[in-house]
């Protein structure tokens, strides 16, 4: 959008070829280059005295391990893990709410730790085991955490619920016998608007007792 103020020009391909990478772009590139296996032939640029790979700005081939299955897609490097899950793989249990790591509605597990899928690029999630809420129910049977949510009426509109379920799983996976403080701490990154916290607290307490 432009207003009365001028717009910063977009970097052109020519600038990239000449190694004209901004510091911010460089940081982004270097993390990605370090974190992901090479799946497409990237451009190589000289930045801060080193040869680094540049992906994009167009679509590049990516490969993921989601809920135990290998999945492939052509995606722009700027696509977040959340948008890839929702828009490309139709896994819409993780919700897009704040879109900046504040509310936890997009919580998924990445190599057994909870992450905000909105705050991670899909390209960075390659090579990791990604688990979404859809993976928890097996053969139509709810996971004990999910059943505890149902039994304790822990959802109203339900938009925060999958994120809370995944956050609960992360807490209990890490610590099967959590104290009340551990539970509160583990769920403090998730927000509900309808006011279902009493049910959520009851649900995770029961799930913990059952050793879910």
């Amino acid at each position, binding site marked *: 959008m432009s207003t009365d103020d001028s717009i910063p020009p977009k970097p052109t391909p020519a600038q990239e070829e000449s190694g004209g990478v901004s510091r911010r772009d460089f940081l982004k590139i270097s993390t990605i280059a370090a974190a992901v296996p090479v799946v497409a032939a990237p451009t190589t640029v000289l930045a801060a005295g080193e040869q680094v790979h540049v992906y994009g700005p167009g679509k590049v081939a990516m490969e993921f391990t989601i809920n135990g299955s290998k999945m492939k897609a052509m995606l722009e490097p700027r696509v977040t893990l959340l948008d890839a899950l929702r828009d490309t793989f139709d896994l819409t249990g993780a919700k*897009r709410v704040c*879109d900046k790591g504040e509310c936890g509605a997009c919580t998924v597990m990445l190599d057994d730790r909870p992450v905000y899928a909105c705050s991670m690029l899909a390209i960075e999630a390659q090579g990791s085991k990604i688990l979404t809420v859809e993976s928890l129910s097996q053969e139509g049977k709810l996971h004990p955490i999910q059943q505890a949510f149902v039994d304790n009426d822990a959802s109203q509109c339900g938009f925060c619920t999958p994120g809370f379920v995944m956050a609960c799983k992360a807490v209990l996976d890490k610590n099967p016998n959590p104290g009340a403080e551990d539970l509160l701490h583990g769920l403090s990154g998730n927000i509900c608007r309808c006011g279902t916290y009493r049910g959520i607290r009851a649900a995770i307490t029961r799930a913990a007792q059952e050793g879910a």
Partner: protein
Amino acid sequence: MADYQWPDPENRTLIGDRTLRVDSPDKVSGRARYTYDTKRPGMLYGKVLRAPYAHCQVVSIDTSAAEKMPGVKGIQIIQKAGTNIHWAGDDVVLVAAVDEGTAEDALRAIKVKFQKQAHLVSDAEPPAGVGESQGPLSMDEIGDMLDNQVPERQIVQQIGQYGISFKITEDDVKEAKEEGVPDGIIEAAQKATVHPEAAGKPKSNYQKAAVQTTGDVDKAFSEAEVVSEGLYGAPVIVHCCLESHGSISEWPDPEHLFVHMSTQGVSGIPGQMAEPLKMDAANVRVHQDHVGGGFGSKFGPDRWGVATAEVSKKVGGKPVRYMLERDAELKVAGARPSAYARVKVGAKKDGSLVAWQSKSWGTGGPSGGGMPPIPYVFRIPVQRKEHTAIRNNIGPARAWRAPNHPQAAVITMCALDDLAAKLNMDPVEFLRKNLDLVSTNPNDPRSRMYAEEFTIASDLMDWKSKWHPRGQSMEGHIARGVGTSMHTWGGRGHASDCDLSIHPDGSVDIKMGTQDIGTGTRTTIAVVAADALGLPANAIKLYIGDTLYPPSGGSGGSTTPGGVSSSTRRAVVDARDALFAKVAPALNAKPEDLEAKNGVIRVKGDASRSLAWKEACARIGATPITAHGHNDAIAAKNHPDLTNSGVGGVQMAEVEVDTETGIVKVKKMVAVQDCGLVIDQRLAESSVMGGLIMGISYALFEEKVMDPATGIMLNADMEFYRLAGLNDIPELVVHMMTGKGYDERGVIGLGEPPVISGGASISNAVANAIGVRVPFLPLTPDKVLAALNQKAGA
């Protein structure tokens, strides 16, 4: 005549019980589909360019560069050059592209020039001497109101009240008609008094309403034995629905529109979209499975929803989805008006209230807003009230769960609490003392109900041992206190239609164009139907959330439980009686001697003569039994026992205040609530728990913070627009009033009531703890410390 009355307690199988919410398994597993989750074949993604200034004019829009970008499929100008914009974040241009990234790139390529104008975002106390009238309306002002979707009747009323400052020519009328200005507004303008001398004069942001006086106020105050004066209020807060507003529009053919929309009122959307799109409402289909919160902010398609449909038509009918970005959701998609007041209230020494005086003000954004219903709950016999609405550039207000009541409770119940303190009375005793002022109608049960509720709430809170005179419970720097508040709401069932079918194979379905906004509407319908048929709730297949089904009212104002339960009850009783008629010969009985219980149809008092449900349904024949259920104002009047209006509730809060840091912690909340006949105990309790939690949230944290310099919202995200988290939630105790004296009132809605008293009861608990009033919500550390400092300096 069928017996639609609610069954007696001994004949209820599910009503009043604790059925598990029928859609929870879908929600916990991620299967529940919301509009935001819905993907249509070939769907394009929308993004909206929004105004960066609080008050400005669109000077020019150049979309030529964006149009040429690969992947950009359609561009819709929402507010054309020349339009005045009245709040930052208002929608200007919608782009539809193959993906969101491309749409965002396109927004950056659109060149819009805005001419900034002076803005006001403050809702501070109006200066003395603001005028009583806002003066005659200019053509631009009427145009602005139309652009900003001010309801037609409100525009007509204002034209009538203030007149206009311009002469209308025939060309004006012709042009207005071409632009789609409603005839009612054109006629009102043609009939209005014209004040050409007022043209071009600047308008005040302050609209002072006429002073309302009942009785001789000065005399009453001079005779009052104790008078308390204070300042109270609650700021603008936002809805912050977790699923932002938005929709997907597509045109299967040029005449028909299919919309997925995140809404609280499925049946009401076609009419609202058809008018701006100049098409027949009958050609608009709306669908929604689940909605991620509404709280009063999702009744219309909104201008961006209409634009989504328009751009879809431009691209050959392809589906276009546009959901609001989070910052836009907080900036423009709904806010609760603020309300503040200087209150003077007087009583006799025994605590009897005698007089009320208030000077109130507040803002609902561009339309100003009205006075909350103060004094709340109590009809104090002598009153003088004046209110000034501030029209400013913070963005539009919408109904927020229990519109105007939480503000009225804060102003009234805090003022009464201060008066009780001055009287050295326990506030519970003081409020009980005045319960005869609750209603002038001797048949109104609320005086009695409040008395019963106070008794129960006091027990559950252990009020008598916890309450103390103000400021007298310090341990080191921790002060403890308790506070209370009370509230009321209407909640009669809305118009609702449904079709209930019993199929020859024994399956049962119900079709209703309602929606479940998280309140448990699906479960309510299933419980009512299953209860009458002697089946479990999950035996009822529910088809809701689509305009293909019979219309049912919008879910607002706590009208849904009464509406859907009344229409369902009528349908299920008629269908069941039709089934009894088919089955009676086989059981050698009269239809009226049969009952449906525990999965069988049997003769009353003779369990040996029975047919299992499936066997019974096999006798229906090839065509299912279908019964239509209908509820509206007339039907509700004929059967006043199905749904009713006017609930009462009492809440109590216990807090700890750290007097060094100013941090308030709620330690316990108690809610005692009536809602007539409780359809499901668990759902009712969850609704009240949710209300208490939202109450804690707006009492302690929530405020739409505006930057006076730039006019934009400073906390339009979920980090700085703070909502209560799990750590903020104390012990919550909920008691539903049920049984004799309550059940026979019929079903009354429960969405609004439990959210009303949280702010007032917590503010009163803080005053009890620290011995001084913190005037305004939210009770943040800075305000608590300021109040303590003022007390120390006094």
